[in-house]
């Protein structure tokens, strides 16, 4: 049962709970009337201490499709944080108005800290370069929908693996399922953090490899997860400029890839996937955005006890 639960990191839910969510999201996709109005009279607070368009709109669209309402702010300048209010006080206050909180913060661990003080469920909508569990739900649901399973796959992660929270969360999510092999493709400066390889993959016996050449491994992949090099995660402009164009996926590079490959991206894209790739049937990133709304509908309804 997910009713009343927080979602801070992907491993907060077990495989059975995830599978129930995916089944629910699939049912919503197949029958848009299903769950409609199930959250009428309920309020979701979207607290975005860091600007976001896609995730916030996805949450709000999901809640509205469930018949509920949304309150919140889209940047810290319009919140009490600008006046010096603590995060603890903000969530305790918002909990008086809303039934559930979805929050994004540039600070790692912000959602975890908020959940310790909140009287209503908190969903982490991204905490710095750390976790983004609802994107993980989106990604797992996309893979499940398009590949039929989230186990026994070779998944390539390409781009900024150091600061890319969607990558960190998806690695954790995929490691819940057996037989997945992960291939990390990045320049040495943007390698996946040590805590993931040390704690998660090594300890749990997960198979992984690291490389800096996409062309060498693209033919092995069932899923290619491309991420943007995020300017906002760098303290140093020079490092960003040097690394931002490390990888660009083109039609030419895809020649070596499997026909069954699916290409994913958490969006927004800058130039790491050439627009010519959009027409390739293997490009799944816009479908991925729609799966994101369905899975958030399933999540909100489940946490609010409406599904």
């Amino acid at each position, binding site marked *: 049962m997910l009713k009343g639960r927080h979602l801070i990191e992907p491993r907060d839910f077990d495989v059975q709970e995830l599978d129930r969510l995916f089944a629910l999201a699939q049912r919503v996709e197949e029958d848009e009337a299903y769950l409609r109005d199930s959250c009428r009279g309920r309020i979701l607070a979207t607290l975005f201490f860091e600007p976001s368009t896609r995730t916030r709109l996805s949450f709000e669209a999901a809640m509205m499709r469930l018949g509920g309402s949304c309150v919140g702010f889209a940047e810290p300048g319009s919140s009490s944080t600008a006046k010096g209010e*603590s*995060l*603890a006080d903000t969530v305790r206050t918002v909990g008086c108005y809303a039934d559930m909180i979805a929050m994004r*913060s*540039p*600070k*790692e*661990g*912000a959602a*975890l*800290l908020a959940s310790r003080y909140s009287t209503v469920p908190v969903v982490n909508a991204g*905490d*710095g*370069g*750390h976790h983004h569990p609802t994107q993980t739900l989106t990604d797992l649901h996309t893979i499940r929908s398009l590949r039929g399973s989230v186990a026994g796959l070779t998944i390539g992660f390409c781009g900024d693996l150091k600061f890319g929270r969607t990558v960190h969360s998806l690695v954790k999510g995929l490691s819940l399922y057996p037989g997945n092999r992960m291939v990390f493709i990045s320049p040495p400066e943007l390698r996946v*953090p*040590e*805590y993931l390889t*040390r*704690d998660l993959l090594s300890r749990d016996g997960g198979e992984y490899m690291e490389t800096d050449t996409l062309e060498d491994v693209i033919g092995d992949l069932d899923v290619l997860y491309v991420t943007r090099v995020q300017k906002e995660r760098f303290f140093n402009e020079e490092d960003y400029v040097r690394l931002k164009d490390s990888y660009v996926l083109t039609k030419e590079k895809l020649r070596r890839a499997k026909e069954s490959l699916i290409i994913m991206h958490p969006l927004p894209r800058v130039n790491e996937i050439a627009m010519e790739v959009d027409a390739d049937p293997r490009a799944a990133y816009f479908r991925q955005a729609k799966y994101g709304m369905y899975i958030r509908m399933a999540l909100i309804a489940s946490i609010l006890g409406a599904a």
Partner: protein
Amino acid sequence: MLNITKIQNGIVIDHIHAGQGLKIFNWLGLGAAPYTVAFVVNAESVRMGLKDIIKIDNEIALDLAVLGLLDPDITVNIIQHGDITRKISLALPERVENVLICRNPRCITATEQYAPHIFHLSDAAMGLYRCEYCDEMRGAGDFR
């Protein structure tokens, strides 16, 4: 060879790695203690070669988690009526709160000052701890 009188009721902190004793002595605030304290450095040890020892002629509260973080090989002997009544072997604690401090500027603890700094043991062999909030790793040695 030095001989130090047995204590009647108190604590002996034994098997401290040679050179670590002063940090523990200072951390326990023993320099200002109103009771007898013996601090031995470079005592001969069959097991360790050299070791430091602290004898405290008083029953004081010890945070064994922090002591374990300072030196996980320490043995704490509880003395009552001149006899050892309990031997406690320390190890690296599984969880420490407000002992190790997270230095990650992106961590929520960097801005929310009331948030406790909580670390969990991640790799005992390497003495590595993981911040509960941001997963940043810190070594037990960072506290020492």
